[in-house]
Every structure is written in C-alpha cells, then in structure tokens.
C-alpha cells in the first residue's frame, strides 16, 4: 500500500513538472547555436542575465553551423549563433535571414602531438601546414560534419590544392562534435583543426599542443543572425531582436572579453563591439 502511494505521488509530481515546463514554453526563444559557444560555457553565463533583463528564457539547441543554418532556412529557429561567414552571408542574401551581426571572434588552431612528425611548427601558413600533414601521410582527424570548423578545414585544404575530402591515408573523418573529435585525436595522436576555446577546455586531457601560428586564414568570427520575421510569430521575432541587441550591449561585450580568464588564464573570445576594430 505504501509502495502504491509513493508510486502515485511520483506520477503526480512528474505530471506537474511536465505541465509547468509547457507553460514556460510560451515565453521562450529558440536559439540554435554552434556547439563551441555552448561547450565553452559562455551561454550558461550569459543566458541567465538575458532572462533576468527580459523575462525571456532561451532554449538552446547546439548543432554544427551547417545544420544551424539549415534550421534557420527552414524556419526551425528564432535566432542563430554560427561561425560560418560564407554560409551566413548566403542565408541573408536568400532572404531567409534579415540581419547578420558579427559579435565576437577568436581563432582556429592546428594542434597535434608535441613530436610534430609532419613539421607543422615550421609551416609558413596554415595551408602549408595542411600540405605538410598530407605530404607526410600523417594522421588528421576531420570533423566531417559540415560544421563551421569543418568548412574551415575544407577551405584550408582547397587553398593548399588538396582534395577537400582528405584523400591521404591518415585522413580520418569523425562526423562528431569538436569535443569528441579532440578526444579521438588525442587517443590516436593525430593532427586536428579546432577552435581555441574547445581546444583549451580539452588540452590537459588529450595532451596535444598548438602547433600553428596565428594567421588571417585561422580567424574565427561568430555572428548572431535573426531569421526573417515573416517566418516567425511576431512575439518571437521581437525576442530575437532583443537577443541580438543584448549580445551587442557594452556590458555584455565586456563580460565576453573576460570570459575564460578564470578557468584558462586567458579569455576565450574577443568581443567585436567594445572598441573600434575591423569587422568581417
């Protein structure tokens, strides 16, 4: 009898829980973001502030930038955070998105085992680094998932006149997120292209090192993109606008500038709206 009572109250409690969730949904904003922004912990820090200021709770769906842009195109998102400039500009040009604002940046790194068998440290450019890796048939873990990072891999391979789908014996396509791809690279002692933020979060665990020098072709710009309001309920379009303005707010930009200093000893992102600096 006691068991039955406990069971019934559990069922009742979960029903209440499920319902309360449903009520809150009407206040929400569907934010589709690239995984690195979520995995770095930045959103977990910013979203509560956004909710406090506006009363809007953002629901976060983290996928690769390619998938995020497709979701935006199909109207399955209110606002996007992505880092695939070419695809973003195409989305705006197609009319599916109305506003693309770059709001922060960091850079990609080519990481690998400290022994550096392919000589990436001596490479003259990121494209040259890729050529060295391919020429020595060294192992390289590719994201292979049409994410922003994967698109950059493809761009670097093309710049180096290499087959964009790899093609050398050591080329591995993981089809996985940045974190898992870094784990695979660490286990198999391979080279990999990663955004600096996720790399720093995993560095201790995987024992790989940054081997590349900063270069323009490794610049990684994150943008906030509003979907065509005609595709959204008016209230959601309004919230998307609020969210875009929120990210450009000087106080939030300062917070982005500080983010990561505590955990990694250095900031993970550079805000683009704090002082006058060139924007892409």
């Amino acid at each position: 009898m006691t068991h039955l009572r406990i069971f019934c109250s559990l069922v009742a409690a979960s029903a209440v829980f499920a319902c309360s969730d449903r009520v809150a949904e009407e206040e929400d904003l569907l934010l589709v973001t690239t995984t690195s922004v979520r995995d770095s912990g930045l959103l977990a820090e910013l979203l509560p502030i956004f909710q406090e200021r506006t009363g809007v709770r953002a629901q976060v769906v983290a996928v690769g930038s390619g998938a995020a842009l497709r979701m935006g195109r199909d109207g399955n998102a209110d606002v996007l955070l992505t880092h695939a400039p070419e695809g973003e500009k195409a989305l705006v040009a197609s009319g599916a998105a109305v506003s693309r604002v770059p709001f922060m940046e960091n850079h990609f790194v080519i990481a690998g085992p400290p022994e550096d068998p392919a000589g990436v440290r001596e490479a003259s450019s990121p494209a040259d680094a890729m050529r060295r890796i391919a020429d020595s048939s060294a192992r390289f873990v590719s994201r292979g998932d049409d994410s922003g990072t994967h698109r950059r891999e493809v761009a670097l391979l093309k710049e180096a006149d290499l087959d964009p789908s790899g093609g050398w014996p050591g080329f591995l396509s993981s089809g996985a997120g940045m974190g898992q791809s870094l784990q695979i690279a660490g286990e198999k002692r391979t080279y990999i292209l990663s955004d600096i933020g996720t790399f720093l979060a995993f560095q201790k665990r995987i024992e790989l090192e940054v081997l590349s020098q900063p270069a323009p072709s490794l610049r990684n710009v994150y943008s906030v993109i509003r979907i065509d309001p005609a595709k959204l309920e008016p209230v959601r379009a309004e919230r998307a606008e609020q969210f875009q303005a929120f990210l450009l707010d000087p106080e939030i930009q300062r917070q982005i500038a500080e983010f990561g200093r505590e955990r990694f000893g250095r900031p993970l992102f550079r805000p683009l709206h704090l002082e006058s600096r060139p924007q892409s």
Partner: protein
Amino acid sequence: MNPPSIGLLVEITARTLAVCLPALAISLAIGLPIGIAIGGRRFAGRVPLVSLINTGMGAPPVVVGLVVFFALERNGPFGSWSLLYSPVAMVLAQVVIALPLVVGITLAAVGSLDEDWELQVRTLGVPKRWRLWLLVREIRLGLLAAVITALGGILSEVGAVMAVGGNLEGETRVLTTAILMYTQMGELEIALGLAVILVGLMLVLAGLLTAVQQSGRA
C-alpha cells in the same frame, strides 16, 4: 557535403553486421553456459548473483560505454593496447551489454522448467552427457528469445558505440551512429534511409530467428 552513395550505405551496413554478429557470438558462447549453470543449481549467494545479473540486463548502454572508455583510454588500465576508437572496442562494449541479457533470459528459461524435470530425466536413466542436450532442447524457445533480445539490444544501441567507437568514417561508423550524425547535420533524408535499413535488418534477422523458434515448436 556529398550525399552518401549506395556503396557507402552497403559498407556501413556490412560494418554494422561485422561488429554486432561477433559481439552476439561471444555473448552467446559465454552467456549460455553460465545461464544454464546458474539456472540449474542451488548454492549460497545465488540470490545476490541473480539480482546482479538482472541489474545488468537493465544497465544503461551509455554508462557501459563510459566504463569501457575509461578502461581503454590511453591513460587507462588497458591503454597500452590502443583499442579505443576501434571496432574491437565496440565489440567489447556490446558484449558487456548483451552478456547479462543472454545469461538472465537463459537462467529464467532453465528456472521455468518443471521442478522435478531433472528427477524425471534421472529416473528414466538418461546418461549424464545426454542430459544437457535434453535440457537445451527443452528450453530452446527461451534460448532463442535470449538470442533475439541480445541482437536487438546491440544492433539498435548508439550511446556506447559512439563513446568507444567514435563514428570514424570507414572504421567505426555503424548504422546507429551514422543515423545520429546525419540527424544532427540536418541531413534528415539520409538519416531516414539509414533508419529504414536498420529496421529492415532487425526485421529480417528477428524474422529468421523466429521462424527457427516456431518451427522447433511443432
């Protein structure tokens, strides 16, 4: 992103079978004897052992994947074997998932035999070496249920094989991890195509086994 060719679909399907069937064979080879041994005997500590097995039958595969991950990672106890993110690691995780299912269902089948089945067999003067054969014949329906359950468990599993296999193209990418990947990439048509293959595969294999099971009944 190029859509996967027919060749690629065939390759992923073939690799799925190349991982799942050995895992099933190993689970059966180890699990059936253990199940029969535990099922037919009374001994001290049997109850805790059986409840441990029953717990294993409900073990979340993703937790199994995590445990195998820690065992095989470079700094783990078996790191020197370099098995993480290889098909061998996937087989290992699937055996850990399937083994309790095989043992649990087998011992339940043995336990469901008539209490004095063994007494009858003994009274009839059946030699000891034939008794095991008779037992297996007697519980064959239960054993096939064990095979079908184990196969379904590992064929449809994604968490563990993702964690220890890594979904590497041409190496450890199987139907479930490919479906997950294409879903996350927004390539829903390809994901759906692979899902149809997976369900079809299960339908064919379960159908074959059920045919065997039911023909044995007549």
